[in-house]
């Protein structure tokens, strides 16, 4: 996959040599091209930091929302439903705008662009994480809870040592999906001025006016990033499978 994308890049570069392409803006052999390229790639730091921080928070939040959804208590289940339905209904871009411009006014606080982006992405994603966790936990056989009861494990220990380790193995592909989704959605945080990949590309387009070449590089940046993440998730899946030979 990585090789294929590199091949694509090379092909695009070669085609760029004739026709209307202007690869000079990002040509690493020239000083200006190299500076521009560095400028574009420098957004990687915030894209990754933002996405990873947001996914960690949203996984924790999702789990905390999922657990009441599995309760026998209907009020706790009601809380889970209301949270999931409400949060899921807000478009991510709207959430970003609301958290950055609206929430500080409501709570009388100031918020940095970075944390506004993290909170907005984490909130949006947590509803989906909650549903993934709920499905994963519900897929674990009732006998596992009963056996935990007979060896005197309390609720927290049962979840921590028995149910969640098995549930997480099952939902790992879905969690990987969410991380990929998060990396892509982090591009939306560019609208409030976050200096991540998309914002950098936008800024360079304004000064250089070569949108085709710059956005193509942007596209490839996301592609490479996400291919790396996918490979990582698959590696983790394989590793967990070898320590768990259950059927």
């Amino acid at each position, binding site marked *: 996959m990585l090789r294929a994308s590199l091949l694509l890049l090379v092909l695009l570069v070669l085609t760029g040599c004739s026709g209307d392409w202007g690869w000079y803006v990002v040509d690493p052999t020239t000083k200006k091209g190299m500076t521009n390229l560095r400028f574009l790639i420098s957004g990687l730091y915030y894209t990754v930091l933002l996405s990873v921080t947001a996914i960690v928070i949203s996984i924790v939040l999702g789990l905390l929302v999922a657990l009441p959804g599995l309760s026998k208590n209907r009020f706790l289940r009601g809380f889970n439903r209301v949270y999931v339905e409400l949060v899921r209904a807000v478009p991510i871009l709207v959430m970003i705008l609301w958290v950055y411009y609206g929430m500080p006014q409501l709570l009388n606080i100031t918020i940095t662009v970075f944390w506004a982006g993290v909170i907005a992405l984490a909130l949006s994603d947590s509803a989906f994480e909650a549903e993934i966790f709920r499905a994963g936990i519900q897929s674990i056989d009732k006998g596992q809870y009963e056996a935990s009861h007979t*060896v005197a494990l309390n609720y927290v220990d049962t979840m921590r040592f028995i149910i969640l380790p098995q549930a997480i193995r099952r939902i790992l592909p879905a969690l990987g999906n969410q991380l990929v989704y998060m990396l892509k959605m982090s591009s939306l945080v560019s609208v409030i001025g976050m200096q991540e990949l998309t914002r950098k590309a936008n800024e360079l387009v304004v000064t250089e006016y070569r949108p085709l070449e710059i956005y193509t590089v942007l596209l490839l940046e996301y592609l490479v990033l996400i291919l790396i993440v996918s490979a990582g998730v698959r590696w983790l899946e394989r590793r967990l499978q070898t320590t*768990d030979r259950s059927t």
Partner: protein
Amino acid sequence: MQQQAQQIIQMREVSKFFGSFQALNSVSIDVQLGERVVVCGPSGSGKSTLIRCINQLEIHDSGSIVIDGTTLDGSKQSLRAIHANVGMVFQQFNLFPHLTVLENLTLGPVRSGQQSKSQAQELAMNYLERVRIPEQANKYPAQLSGGQQQRVAIARSLCMEPKIMLFDEPTSALDPEMINEVLDVMVELAESGMTMVCVTHEMGFARRVADKMVFMDFGAIVEMSDTAKFFEAPESERCQEFLQQILPH
């Protein structure tokens, strides 16, 4: 032998409903410390529900259950009484598939604060030797045969050092050639003086180890008598019919 028998399980007029279906209909039974009770009856007769009520996997709707002097009422104290006294072996083994055999055995004792990790491991290896599979300690459940898995499950329960062992059709999910290795372990356990309540269709095992036989139908105890009498002269017609159907011809 103890002169005065100590009642460790006391069930009085216990009833249990699943919706409108009555799974247990005013069941009363006493079990003495060291006694071996085998419960049999047609499927759906309430055998499993009976023993699942003893460790509160099912909560009874009426009547009373007393374990080792503690009334089961859903309180923390009654939960402690169950955890301290009652072990259970399931038809489907219910081992923890993501943990090794040894981890399956030590998790409960360590997390409940009963034993240190090294104590728990030593005890676990003792019990694995008793069920004759110490060499499987570091394997995962899925790498073992059904009979071996069920023996691990028995050892896991024993590691909690219970006074009572409940067995819910422990051999029903096994291939025929593996039934005996599990029954052998259960016979040894019975001979060691463990209090046991077993739901099983293995009548040879019942004859060999049971002190008391219980026959259930439609959620009620139809017949309860000592083992010899139960097999030679069952009183009720339903029990006679049932025995005729399941005893080898």
